[in-house]
Each structure stands twice: as C-alpha cells, then as structure tokens.
C-alpha cells in the first residue's frame, strides 16, 4: 500500500515536472546573448585608443585594443574602428601584435561581426606581412634593404607589384561606402608608410617603387606619397595651407586632417597661430563685407584646424574650443564635446 501511495505521488510529481520543463522554459531573445552594442562615447574612446596607440607604438596598449572588440559596434562605426585597430596593431608591431592578429581572426569570424571575411581577406594578411617585414627589417637604411623588405612584405601578403597596380586601378576614385579598399590597396597604403620611414632614413629610392602605380585613384595613398619627400615642418605647412584654402569640404579631405594630426605635437604651434590669423581675417572680412566665398574659405579653414586641434591632448585646446563654441562657431560645440569625451584623433573612413 505504501508503494501504491508513493507511486501515485511520484506520478503526479513527475507529470508536473515534465510539464514545467516543457512549459517553464522561457527562451531568451537571441540578441540579448550578444555582446552589448557600444554607444557613441564608447566608440569614440575606442577609436581614440587605436589612434593614440598607432602613434605611441606601445605594445602595452595591445591588450586594450583587443578589449575594444568585446563590444559590438554599429556597422559604419565598426568599420572605422576595425581599420584603426588593425593599422595600430601593424604600427605597434612585434610578436605580441602577431599573436593578437591571430586572436582577432576568431573575432572576425563571429556572426555578429560584420564584414569579418573582408578583414580576414584584405587586411589581416597585409598587417601581418607588415609586422613580419618590420621584425626582419626594423630600420631600413639602404636601397638593398628596402628592396628586400618590399619583397618580403609582398610575399607575406600574397601579392605582387602587378597585383598592386591592378588593385589600385580598380579602386573607385571617389569614395564609396560600399567599396572598401581591397588587399592590394591596403598594401599600397602600408607600403607608403614603410617607404616614408625608409625615405626619412635617407633611402630616396623607396619612392621609385610607386612609379607607374596610379596612386591618384586612392586619395590617402596619393596624399602620403606627396608628403613623403617633405620634412615634418614642411608637411605641417603644406597641410595647413591645403586645409585652409578649401572652397568645400569633401569626404577625402578628411585624410588631410588625419595627416596633419599624425604630424604630432610639433604641428600645434602652427595650428594655433593659423587659427589666430584666420580669426582676425574673418573679423576683417566681416567688417569689409567681402564676398561669401572668402568668408566661406576662412570658416572652412578654421573648422578644419579646430578639428585637428581638438584631437590633441594639450591644455591650450579646450579654452580655444570653448571660445569658438561661445561665439557660435558651427562645429566648435561638437568638437568640444568630443574632446571632453576623450577623442584624440580624427575620424576617417578607413585609415
């Protein structure tokens, strides 16, 4: 009898259990299991970290770069950030950077990581090749070393000079959000960085490699090519001049902002001086009611310089941005906000 009672209780209890198991599980929404989608502040901080790391070449920053991929990013923002991160890893270099690239390959394979296949195919081989070439030829000082470094780089990247020419020929001259640079274009950009270093070490032949390569089809490549023969002061002057004499601000012009910022703190005095000069000129134009176009150019120049200025970590930056924001400058308020959020760098599409 006891058995019969027990069996009854067990049967009811197990039936309840079965029902609760099949009814009681409330599945989570799948999206809730994904890494969080970063907000703009997080994106700006991550981007700033990448840009700063690229300049400082500090291997201690690699874990921080890796950590930024714990978040998801809006597709457009993800692309900008991923390129910045990969470029930074390439510039930092070393065995740790190579190991990080290996791990990122897994990250790029995750289903929520947009265009993961693109980064694996077009960026990772090039960045890996750069690091390996830098490891073997860290300091190119002769044409022969340059030649060997280029050969090694191309071999590691799975490219030839002809492939680079073809790739850049196919690259749409006008930026297009749909068309990211192909491996060959990325390789040209990296090679120009390597050439810049070699040139600075006296290897003038480094530029010859690009003879016959249609660099004008890729503005960042063309820009770097123009800047390589110049020393830093010349570059700063050239870029400030270009950025303050624009009728309109196009997408590709933003690479000039980035290039100026890359010149480093040495550019700051010149930028500040130019801002002051343009401010006075603007007042003068207003008083004399000059043509719109002249005022427009001054405004454009001021805005460009303020944007580069906002990317610097310097006590002089914030008061100037505040001053322009209070005067109603169209972009100063936004730049001030980004500066306070910690953005140290320039937002560009893919470099």
């Amino acid at each position, binding site marked *: *009898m006891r058995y*019969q009672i027990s069996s*009854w209780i067990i*049967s*009811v209890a197990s*039936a*309840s259990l079965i*029902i*609760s198991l*099949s*009814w*009681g599980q*409330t599945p*989570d*929404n*799948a*999206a*809730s299991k994904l890494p969080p*989608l970063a907000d703009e502040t997080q994106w*700006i901080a991550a981007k700033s970290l990448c840009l700063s790391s690229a300049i400082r070449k500090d291997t201690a920053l690699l874990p921080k770069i890796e950590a930024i991929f714990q978040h998801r*990013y*809006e*597709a*457009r*923002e993800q692309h*900008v950030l991923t390129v910045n991160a990969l470029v930074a890893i390439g510039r930092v270099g070393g065995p740790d950077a190579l190991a990080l690239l290996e791990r990122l390959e897994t990250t790029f394979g995750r*289903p*929520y990581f*947009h265009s993961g296949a*693109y980064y694996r195919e077009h960026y990772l081989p090039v960045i890996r090749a750069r690091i390996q070439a830098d490891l073997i030829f860290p300091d190119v000082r002769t044409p022969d070393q340059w030649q060997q470094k280029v050969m090694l780089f191309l071999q590691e990247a799975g490219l030839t000079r002809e492939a680079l020419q073809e790739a850049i020929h*196919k*690259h*749409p001259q*006008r930026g*297009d*959000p*749909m*068309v*990211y*640079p*192909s491996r060959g274009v*990325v390789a040209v950009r990296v090679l120009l960085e390597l050439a810049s270093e070699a040139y600075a070490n006296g290897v003038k032949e480094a530029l010859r490699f690009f003879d016959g390569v249609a660099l004008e089809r890729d503005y960042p490549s063309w820009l770097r090519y123009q800047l390589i023969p110049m020393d830093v002061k010349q570059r700063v002057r050239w870029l400030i001049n270009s950025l303050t004499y624009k009728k*309109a*601000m*196009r*997408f*590709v012009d933003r690479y000039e902002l980035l290039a100026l910022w890359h010149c480093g703190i040495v550019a700051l005095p010149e930028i500040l001086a130019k801002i002051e000069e343009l401010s006075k000129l*603007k007042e003068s134009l*207003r008083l004399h009611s000059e043509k719109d176009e002249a*005022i*427009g150019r001054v*405004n*454009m120049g001021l805005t460009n310089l303020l944007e580069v200025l906002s990317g610097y970590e310097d006590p002089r930056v914030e008061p100037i941005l505040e001053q322009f924001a209070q005067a*109603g400058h*169209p*972009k100063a308020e936004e730049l001030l906000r*980004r500066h306070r959020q910690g953005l140290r760098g320039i*937002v560009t*599409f*893919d470099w």
Partner: protein
Amino acid sequence: MRRQKMLGVAALSLAVANLIAGLGQTDRLQIRFKGEATLSVSGDVPVCGFIATCPLYERYCSSFWNLCSGGKRTVSALGSYLVLGGEFGGSQGYSSNAQLLVNLFFDFRYSSPLLQISGFSYEPKTTLGFAYFVDGVKAGAAAIAVAGCQGNYPPCCESGSASANTAAMVSTSVVQASISSSYSASCGCADAEQCLDCTSDGGSQWRADPENSPGYQGFKTSSVSFRHSRSASYTEELKGSIAISGSASECAGAISAGASFAYAGLLLQSLPHPLGVPAIGENEYAWSSDRPARLEIPARAYAHTWGWEPDLGWIAERTLFRVEPSIESEQTEPGFRTIAVGRQLIAQTRDQHGFRDDLIFIRAYLPPSNNDFGLKSVYFTVDGNKVDHADVEIFFPPDAKNHPPGEPPGYEMQLEDTGEDCPRWRRLRQVNTPNWFYYYYDAYAKRRIDRVYYLAAAHGSGYSSGAFYDIYDDGIYIGDRAHPIYGNHKVYLFCLKRRADSYGRKRQLITFVDKLTPNGIHKFIALLEHEQSHRKYYTARISSCNWGDHLDPDEDSLPSWWERIHGLDPMWHNTTGAPGLDSDPDGDSDAVAEIEAFGALTRAERFWKHDWAQGSMQWGTPPSPFPWMYDSTSTNRSRHDRCLLRSVPRTGGR
C-alpha cells in the same frame, strides 16, 4: 487494479485531504481539489455499516460515521470518487436506506506572468477550458433468499419464506446508473418433526447497470476565467444511494446487498500549455533548418484525478488535436489519432512508417508566405467539441535557406572596372537567400518596393556587407547588416536647428541629434528604405555621383542648389555633424536617406508583429526597450522626439 490503488490512497490521512496538482510553471497555475462526503442513513443500520467513500480504512465499521442509529454525517473525502456499498441479511425483516453525496470542489489559482518592458504589452489568455469526465459509473444489486429445514438445526418448520430487495443508484452530471434486484424463496415440509421431505428454495439474483462493462463513461466541457480574479472554482457532485429491505420467516433467511460507484476527474490540455503566453516566449516552436523541413508541436492532455487512476482509452478515441490556422504538411497527417498513456492523452501523427507522438509537420520546403508563421492555436477537442486551446507561435530558422525556391534572388556581386565615378557592379552568380531575407521581403517589401535582392558577397574589391543601391541595374541589394539578430545597424536621427553654415550665416540646418537601434525586421526596413531613398533621389536626378566640382563641390552626391533649399550646407559633405557620417563618403546624401528611412520606420512601427524569425523580436523575451532604442535615453522615446525629422525638410533658404 483501479480499486486497489483507490484503497491505497484511502490510507492517506485526512490531513492531506486538500490535494494540489501543479500544472506547469510553479505557482502559475495550480489546481486544488477538496471533497466533502455526506452519508445519510435511515432505517435499520447494518451491524457492519455501509461501505462508503471515506474513510475506507474504517471498512464496515459504522462507528466512524457515528451513525449507528441512523442520521447524517459529513466528512472530508479523500478522492474524486464515490463508493457506496451495504448489505443486510438474516432471518428477520429489515429495511435500510443509505445515501451518499460527494461534493467535488476544484479550485484553480492562476498568476498572470509579469513582464514589464517599455513599449511592449501583451494580453494573456485568461480562460482555461477543461473536460469534467466520469470514468465509470456502475450500480449493482444482489438479493438472496433461502428457506428450508435444516436437519441439524431444529426446530424444523412446516414452511419458510424469505424475500430480499435491493435498489442501487448512482448519478453524476454526465452519466448515471441504477439497478434493482429482488428475490424470494419459500418452502414447505411434509414432516416437520423429522425434518424430512422439506421442500426448500433458495437462490440469488445479481444484477448490475451496466451489466458487462466497468461502468458508464461520459464527459462535459467547461471553463473558468481568470480575467477578473486570480482564482476560480468549479464544483460537481456524485450521488449514490442504496435501499435494501427483506423479510424472512423462521427457517428462512434473506440477504440484500447493493453497491454503487463513480470516478470523476478533470482533463486539461497540458502541451502546449493552454495558459502559456507566446508573447513572452512560451509555447514557441520553430521549423527545422534542414530539408525536408520539419515542425514538431507537442499536443497532449493530462487527466487530474484524485485517489484513483484513470483509464483514458475510451476518451482517447474521441479526442483530436488540431492546429488553426492550419499548417499544411506534405508528408504526414498530424493529429491523425490520439492515444492514452497513463494519465496522458497524446496526439499522434501518421506517416509512411506508422505513428509518432505529437503533431509533426513535414514539408519539402518551409511554408511559402510569412503569413504562414506566427500566432496559431492548438485545439484540444473531444467528440468535435473544443475543450480548450493553447496559443502558440511558429517561427522560421533565419539563417537556413530552406524556404521555397523563387523570388527574390540573391547574388554574389563582382566589382567591375571602376574607371567610372560610380562603382559598377556585375552579378557574378545567383545564390539562394537566407530565410530571414525571404520572409522579411515577403512581409514588407513585396508589395512596396521593386527589385530588391539579397547581397551574398561582393568580389573584385573589398566590400561592405551592408546594403546599396546600384544605379546601373536600379536594384537594391541588402546584405547581412539587416540580419535580424546579428545586424549592427543604427539609424541616424536629425532635427532642424538654427546654426551657422560654412559662410557664417545662421540658417535652419539639418543637425544630428540622436541614433536609433532598430530590432529584428525593423533593421531590414530601415536599410531598405534608406536605399529606396537613394533610388528615389537618383531617379529624380537629384542625387548623382558625378555632378562635377561646380555643381557638387562637397562631393556628397547632392547639388548645391538642392542642398540650399533643404537645410544642408553645400560646402560640407557632412552638414549634420554626425561623427559616423564624417567617415561616410556619402555624407549628406546618407543623412537624407536616413531621414526618409526613419520616417518609413516610424510608419511601420507595428511591423514587429510580422517578424517570425527565430531568435528575433518575438522569440523568447522581447528585447527591452521595444521595438527599438534611442541612444539619447536608452528607451523607446527619444529626448528629441518633438523635432526629429521624418521627411526631408524644405527650408527654402539660400
């Protein structure tokens, strides 16, 4: 077997007379049973009393009922059954009546599921249907009468006579039974002194209603509502009575015996759970990702009985489970029959191999239309009468490609020579599209937007897996950026604000203020409408990638004259100040498309109801907030609600 178990249950103490049957999630739905048995006895009370429903361990002892002298007594009943029996006999007259009334109280307690998500509400089903069933009602009566002279037991009589009568009845609200039996006997003796040549008569008459089966069976459907209260009750009663009488002379004897019994219980749909709430992730089922595609929905009912074990074979034969709106199955007959296994009724599906439990749908491909998924009901019927239903939701696996062949196609694209200003794409090969694209297209785009294709990959250059409008073939290509789960898309939002343009003049300018993160199908809608906007402006000859430096100095694809009158700065490729558009070669052109996409998105705010991708908005717990989130507040209301642009403004400024 059934009675043995009943006796076992009877040994439980009265302290557990209130039985609780948990049904599903803890505390969400409970069924409590409470029984009350009232025995009334009149006339001659048998020495051994009446066997009555409760408590049986007292057996024939009438002392429990304390009705040795007749009367009425009410006690708790252990189970949802009635058993009444009694007998009297002897060589004297007797007359006795017993009535047993068992009241069955079924209490239901239901706690509505609580889920507080901003922007999302649901109305759970609050009616619970069930079948009250009686599995065996039977009445039996026996009358025995003997008369005779017994050699060893003087005195012998010259004659003897006896008669016995029994009437038994049992009734429930669905079935009843009654029977009566009488028998009489008499004898005479030629030589009473010697007790010889006595003619004796004796015998019995046993009768039962029904005669040859365990009992009459029946059911009726009913329901309770939890709309206004968390508790509901349902009551039934079982009645039994026995009337026995007899008379006997000396040297004769009469025995009357009667019995009646009834077993009752409740039959409730158990799977899918009838009070499951699909809106919050319960009762959700997804088609398989393979081919043929397969969908399995459990369909079961559970018998709640207290103190006895049911045999549900008879009701299984009359039970069917079906899904409405129907789901077409090409290779099976779901719900072809129902079988009983213990306390469960289980729907079975017939296929070429025989029968398998539950409702199984098999098709070469998934159903053709997005409308074929979604909210349906699994009905539990007996004799064609609906007992209850469970709301369920049916989903498709988003990443699989087992939808029916047909439009719209997907393509791998090849970037052609980009000597031209605008990138020219060529269709490299046609590929099958993932289910999410096929059904989202069917739900939203099919009757709205032409020439929409899935972008599987792009070759020949780097590419973004986003979305684009191809000016050469007038096609819109949507890639995995619109994926219901993994798509990382945000919509940029703008207001008109008075601020200085590049000339320093104060103007109403489109200004970036916020971002919106859409969920599920809304990502698809936002991206599609964004590209549709590009198509609109391109075909209206407003947008072009080769206006030239004079007409479009900032190279944002929009001519200066148009930018001036629509709140944009012709000298800035990104007038709006959106950081994301700083890095976007399309700049202001994309801002315009984003504004129109946002307008379309808000007009399609209820489209989440058409999103049946597994893992998306309606699968599991809805995402919070719902159906999308603004960055400015992390809720579904923007801090800038009042000024957000839903169409491109005409500012009219120079």
